[in-house]
């Protein structure tokens, strides 16, 4: 039990959309007052684990990941970081988030800072490292994700792939216990996806603990120890990649895998 890095216990999160009837009619969809994005999900991650979540769009994967990092506060259930319960009132969330790396689907670099500034900021402000030390570690992180050529560029001057690798550098620079990655390649053009995947592969080789939302199936097959099929706010099926690529147990997972593999081969 000592090597448990993070745990979610019966996490529940719903969004209460404030769509008024009149406006909802004009959208043409039936109004959903309550969207249950995460319905009592439990998950354990041990040191060195690489788990991969996949599932249909809108099923609540991002919400679950944000709950894990307490960027969204769950309505019910508990989140543990090591032995510390983050959902207990009074938990120091900032301190906890400093130990959790997060990579966003839409990258979210700080737009007023260069690549170096983006990585340095938390090292200086959160870890309170002295200037030279912070710089050294930021450079090391940027070197690790192979974006040394962008060090002094601003986010708007980078390609999507470069920006996302800087985003990964920002997440790994403070040596977090775990990195949560929310579809790190889905906002990128196909030709840029490869470079980010390469970076993730390197991290995997070093034994980084990761929980990744992704639909990059070849990558999943290669690095994931466990794949988690997530649909309608629930974990529907879990198992090793071989299970999903050969014969998933549930029909929904089967259908989803067929669709996604067809799509990948067509591209």
């Amino acid at each position, binding site marked *: 039990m000592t090597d448990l890095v993070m745990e979610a216990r019966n996490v529940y999160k719903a969004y209460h959309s404030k769509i008024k009837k009149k406006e909802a009619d004009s959208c043409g969809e039936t109004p959903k007052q309550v969207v249950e994005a995460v319905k009592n999900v439990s998950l354990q991650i041990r040191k060195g684990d690489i788990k991969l979540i996949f599932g249909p769009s809108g099923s609540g994967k991002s919400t679950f990941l944000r709950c894990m990092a307490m*960027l969204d506060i769950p309505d019910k259930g508990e989140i543990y970081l090591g032995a510390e319960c983050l959902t207990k009132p009074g938990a120091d969330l900032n301190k906890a*988030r400093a130990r959790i790396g997060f990579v966003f689907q839409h990258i979210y670099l700080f737009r007023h800072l260069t690549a170096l500034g983006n990585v340095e900021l938390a090292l200086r402000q959160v870890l309170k490292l002295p200037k030279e030390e912070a710089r050294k570690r930021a450079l090391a992180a940027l070197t690790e994700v192979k974006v040394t050529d962008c060090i002094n560029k*601003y*986010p708007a001057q980078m390609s999507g792939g470069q920006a996302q690798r800087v985003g990964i550098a920002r997440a790994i620079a403070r040596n977090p216990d775990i990195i949560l990655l929310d579809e790190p390649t889905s906002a990128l053009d196909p030709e840029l996806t490869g470079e980010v995947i390469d970076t993730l592969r390197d991290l995997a080789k070093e034994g980084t603990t990761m929980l990744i939302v992704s639909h990059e199936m070849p990558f999943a097959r290669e690095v994931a120890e466990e794949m988690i099929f997530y649909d309608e706010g629930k974990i529907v099926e879990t198992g090793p990649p071989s299970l999903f690529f050969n014969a998933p147990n549930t029909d929904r997972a089967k259908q989803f895998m067929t669709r996604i593999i067809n799509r990948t081969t067509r591209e």
Partner: protein
Amino acid sequence: MFEFLLNPIYQGWIVQGLLLTVEITLFGVLLGLILGTLLAIGDIYGGKLAKGAIAVYVEIFRGSPLFVQLFLAVYTVPAILNVQIDHYFLAFLVFGLNSAGYQKGYMKGAMETILGDQMQAGLSTGMSKVQTLRHVILPQALRIVIPSWTNEFCSLTKSTATLAYVGLFDLVSAGMAIKGITYQILPVWIVIGAIYLVWITGFSKIMDMIYERKKIPGIELVMQS
């Protein structure tokens, strides 16, 4: 016609008037910036009561002319409080409070375009809300609003022409004094107008240059969207 320009006494008046105009404007913009930023943060994060109070504040200062506010400050406030207050100080206060009403809007607009994703990104690195505001949101917002400040500076400078009517010696007062002696009415107002024009245009140019230098690549796109 324009000989009065060569008279050192008149030159002194003009410089004195211009200095007051400049001082009140710059202090006003600065006070407005500090107060406006606080109001913007209060409007975004505050409770219902705070939001309501801020809305009333803004409506009062943006809904009525600065000219009237100046008279309120100089006549009404001392009459109610039954004390003598320095007109210079009151003018500075009115310009600052008035500007805050406008700058709150600029800051709030700028912060809202940044807040969503950048706040999440800041929190995700372990920074607190306050740290993220301080190191991520404000540095971006303050750069984005530079052009709005330039506008605010221009309009406040123009408004300082009202100071002459509450007994302060500004550029318009200087003009009146010179005109009263020389009777060169048209030339005097042409000169006074030109001085305002040069000062405002020149200062705007400098602000534009600062904006160009401070501007973050790609960040003005945020403003448009």
